[in-house]
């Protein structure tokens, strides 16, 4: 039963409560850095690391934080881990750190992280908080990779830097959709994807209710 709860906590972040597509949390990095798949991946992993560490610490010390100053406490803890990630990337992956520029320090204000602390980690035992952070982190990363891949494919004709569509300028047929690399492209892609996912999950829940009805009869 206990394991079941942990699995559920993890899985809900992937689909039912996907931070990007279902909860619409963390929109700033989602829209800002996803014009190439690799940036989506790096941002997703960096955010997941911060989420995991903060959820862990905050869940352990959840009895210590006073209600009135909990947000301030959470933000300081989150900022600490963000700075660690920033220093780590600068020291070991200067290329990625260079490419993501200011958006790494801005993870501090990613509302996904603060929301999970407020809604989950500060109220639940450590293992469940970790499971939740893991699920949300993976869900966030997958969503960012999907957005990044679509925008990179349509905007530059590549995915993760591999050429998929050959460009007109190089003798192929594909004219890159410049708009996909601009902020407008982020909104268009995100909106379309949320729409598709809403349709899918509506169908899903209808199927489920049909099954349940049959069971009851």
């Amino acid at each position, binding site marked *: 039963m206990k394991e079941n709860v942990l699995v559920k906590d993890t899985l809900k972040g992937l689909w039912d409560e996907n931070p990007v597509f279902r909860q619409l949390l963390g929109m700033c990095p989602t829209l800002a850095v996803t014009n190439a798949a690799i940036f989506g991946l790096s941002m997703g992993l960096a955010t997941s690391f911060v989420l995991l560490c903060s959820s862990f610490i905050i869940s352990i010390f959840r009895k210590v934080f006073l209600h009135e100053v909990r947000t301030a406490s959470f933000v300081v803890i989150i900022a600490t881990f963000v700075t*660690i990630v920033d220093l*780590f990337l*600068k020291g070991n992956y200067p290329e990625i750190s260079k490419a993501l520029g200011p958006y790494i320090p801005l993870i501090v204000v990613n509302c996904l992280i603060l929301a999970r602390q407020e809604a989950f980690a500060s109220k639940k035992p450590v293992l469940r908080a970790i499971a939740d952070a893991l699920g949300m982190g993976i869900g966030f990363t997958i969503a960012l990779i999907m957005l990044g891949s679509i925008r990179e494919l349509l905007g530059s004709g590549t995915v993760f830097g591999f050429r998929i569509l050959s460009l007109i300028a190089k003798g192929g047929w594909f004219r890159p959709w*410049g708009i996909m*690399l*601009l902020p407008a492209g982020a909104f268009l892609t995100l909106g379309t994807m949320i729409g598709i996912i809403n349709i899918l999950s509506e169908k899903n829940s209808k199927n489920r209710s049909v099954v349940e009805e049959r069971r009851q009869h």
Partner: protein
Amino acid sequence: MQRTLKMVLVLTIIGIVSGLSLALVYRFADPLIRFQQLKRLKRAIFTVLPEAKDYRKEIKDGITIYRGLNSKNKPAGIAFEVKGPGFQGPIVLMVGVDNSLSKLLGMEVLESVETPGLGGKITSKEFKDQFKGLSIKQKITYVKNRNPSTPKKPGQIDAITGATISSKSVVNMLNNKISLITKVLKQN
């Protein structure tokens, strides 16, 4: 009152712990970051001066230049940093020119916070390669949406689609610094 004190206490403790752990992490990260910066500087100098095997740092009139030396210890061009405002923040370039200051040997981006995927493309090979061998006897210019069949004029580069401001910044800061460097070096 007691509650207030408790709040102050909790926040103070969190602040101290967080500050201490960051100081600790920084002690490990700082040499790594410095090492990466030096590595990047060296790599940039050797990229923009393809024939250089070694370099010597010189400071003239407050301007730092790196004189490249080839395998026979002969001059292999001059490299220098170029700084200027970009679209979102400063852009820092490393630029190599030949000994006679007539053409560029290469350009490398050291720092930039341009929009990833748009202005960020100033770091792409396609953009940087345009500066290899570019004549600097006249001012560098840029052209938007050039028809691939029209030949480029001397000293002309293609601007990045959707990032004209970044392309323009690079061209402007190059022009300014090149004329300054030319003046300084010809005086000596």
